[in-house]
């Protein structure tokens, strides 16, 4: 279902990352097209988060090529700024990085929050439920208009209801043409949200199967 295309938004070739003497990623290849939702499964310590951080540019790889359209990263448990309201969280990068004025940044932020169905713009992060916080974090990434959305364990601290909220949001974004990469160890969540699934084992990414 949804809009998929063959235009690759993310291409990774031969990615190698070592931590000390341990090779965490040993030649990872993958590609994601617009509208695809790739879910990467793997045990704790398998290197899932490292892969995401390298793609997002937070860490540097030892070897390998990454070609990635504009990406937005949603960190584990959101990483919202606790001292800023929902609106300020989303606006910060628009103002500081993009240099938008008050009006433009507010408009972009409202639109991004609208896409994840959050209307409590003035609430502080701790006043929101876990699912709402995760959606604000997604909106914060969306406000910068990424073409690839990267999510690290988006449901790790969420109950079933909140997990369902995030699933719905991701499916909607995928349908709208966003390329999505989700790292998780939640098999059920992977099953429900993925268009493609892969498993990271011994530092190598293996495609599991394609699901409709």
């Amino acid at each position: 279902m949804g809009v998929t295309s063959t235009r690759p938004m993310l291409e990774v070739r031969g990615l190698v990352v070592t931590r000390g003497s341990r090779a965490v990623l040993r030649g990872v290849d993958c590609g994601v097209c617009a509208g695809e939702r790739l879910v990467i499964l793997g045990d704790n310590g398998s290197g899932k988060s490292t892969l995401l951080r390298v793609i997002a540019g937070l860490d540097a790889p030892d070897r390998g090529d990454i070609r990635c359209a504009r990406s937005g990263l949603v960190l584990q448990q959101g990483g919202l700024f606790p001292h800023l309201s929902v609106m300020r969280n989303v606006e910060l990068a628009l103002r500081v990085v993009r240099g938008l004025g008050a009006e433009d940044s507010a408009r972009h932020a409202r639109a991004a929050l609208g896409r994840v169905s959050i209307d409590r713009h003035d609430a502080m992060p701790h006043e929101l439920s876990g699912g709402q916080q995760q959606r604000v974090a997604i909106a914060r990434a969306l406000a910068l208009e990424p073409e690839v959305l990267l999510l690290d364990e988006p449901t790790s601290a969420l109950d079933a209801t909140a997990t369902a909220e995030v699933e719905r949001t991701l499916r909607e974004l995928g349908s709208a043409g966003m390329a999505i990469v989700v790292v998780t160890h939640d098999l059920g969540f992977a099953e429900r949200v993925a268009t493609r699934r892969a498993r990271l084992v011994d530092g190598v990414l293996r495609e599991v199967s394609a699901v409709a």
Partner: protein
Amino acid sequence: MSVDARWFRVDLRAWSLVLVAMCTLSVHATTHAQVLRWGADPSGGAPFAFLDPNDPERVIGFEVDIMEEVARRLGRRLELHRADWLALFDSLEAGRCDVLMNGFEVTEERAQVARFGAPYFRFGQQLVVRAADASAVRSLGDLAGRRVAVLNGSQSVEVLREAGFPDDAILQYDDSLAPYTEVALGRADAALAESIIAAYYAAHDPRLAVVEGTFAPGEYAAVTRVADAALAAEIDGALAAMKADGALGEILQRWGLWDDGQSALGTAKGAPQEVFAQARGPSADGTTADDTGGIAVSEPGSGAGSVAGAIAPALLRGAWMTVLLTVIAMPLATAAGLGLALARLSPRGWLRRAAVVYITVVRGTPLLVQIFLVYFSLPVVGQWLFGASPAFVQAVLEPFGGAAFLTLPPLFVGALCLAANYAAYEAEVHRAGLEAVPAVQWDAARALGLSRGQAIRHVIAPQGVRIAMPAIINDLNSLIKDSCLVSVIGVTDLLGVCLGIGKARFSVPEMLVVAAAVYLVLSIAGDLLGSWIERRLRARGFAAPQGSAVRQGNAAKGAEAWV
């Protein structure tokens, strides 16, 4: 708007106000055309120059009367520069005052570094012992092997050394009242000081007895800078005239200080004068003797008949000075400390090292020493800089005091030293705060494309400051009390006022209890302010575990990786 941004902005605004005020002050302090700046330590004691026991807003004493008469004859306005007695020579050298007259005995040692004028008073040394020992002690010879208390740095020390007293039998104290208290309490067996001090402080105390007879005579003289020959000659001229026409003799009579020894200095006795009540100690009813002259430090007090009414205005002024020092120093220390903490976490090695050196040196040396050093070296540095500057820079500096542009008012220097000292401590508090910000916050900021500086400004510092806030409030409390150290450079803060009043009224312990009580009130007020700030931060959702990210790892690691 976020709370933090508002806080910083309020700080900035307050800061610019303070700076403007300071500049105005320093300009004001350095425009003194026909002013005679007289250096003395009013906390030193009676009858030289001391706080009026019945109106501590005023400084009185026989030296006040002499200096006022000298200034009047020279057609100048007298301005009192306060400093710790031991620091008065440095104040003179640093150009903070032009003349010292505060019981300085003429000694060869001192005459090498400053210019002594003609003597205005001749004194003798006089012993004071416990009343019970009065019959046994007749002279220094009767005190062999016993401990004698003296004023630190006074001529009495030399007199005792020459009489063969070993150093460990000579107990030195920083004010002239303490030796007598020590004798009364039994820690010392006798006190040796100039006869006029003995007469003022010991004569009224039933526990003490003044030993008849004086010995080892000496002379007090005004002190000027070696280079100021003209001023020295003017003052000597005025004093010579006062000696001749009886004006000096009349002042000494009024203070009960006249004796035949004064004639040896060429001082005429003048018309007979009555000794006024002040010269014999504070009046019991607290009424102010109005014939004492004295330098009004400010508007006269309320005039209430009670002791509390008499000391309340001075006490309030002292407390206000302490509050002022705190509200100037603490925000500066907090801001500078944050800067230092950020420098410590900087990827630039030289910046990290500079911050570590500053923090180590400042935390590793006594605040008291820092205050002294800065206060007396700044003017010298200023003179040197001014001399080394090209003409146009000198022209720019001219309205700010010219060569004296770094001769800043004591309040400013005191606040600056407190701020610089506390900044080193706040730096460590801030560092702990910044490092306690979860690493995921660095990642989140970076994932959004913020630069390192933007992340610090918008994400890390606001959270770090909030985490550090309880510790900062704790240090605020500590600074309120450490501020009393600036009294050594003549800032009359709460403790300085209380000690001054205590010495003037022979009630140091009582006034220390009063000081402690006022400090306690100020400290409680500081704590209330602190918990109000913390409540506000909580109301804005900070420190709510649900909302904040998992505290994992070390933010500094994240910072190091992000270069």
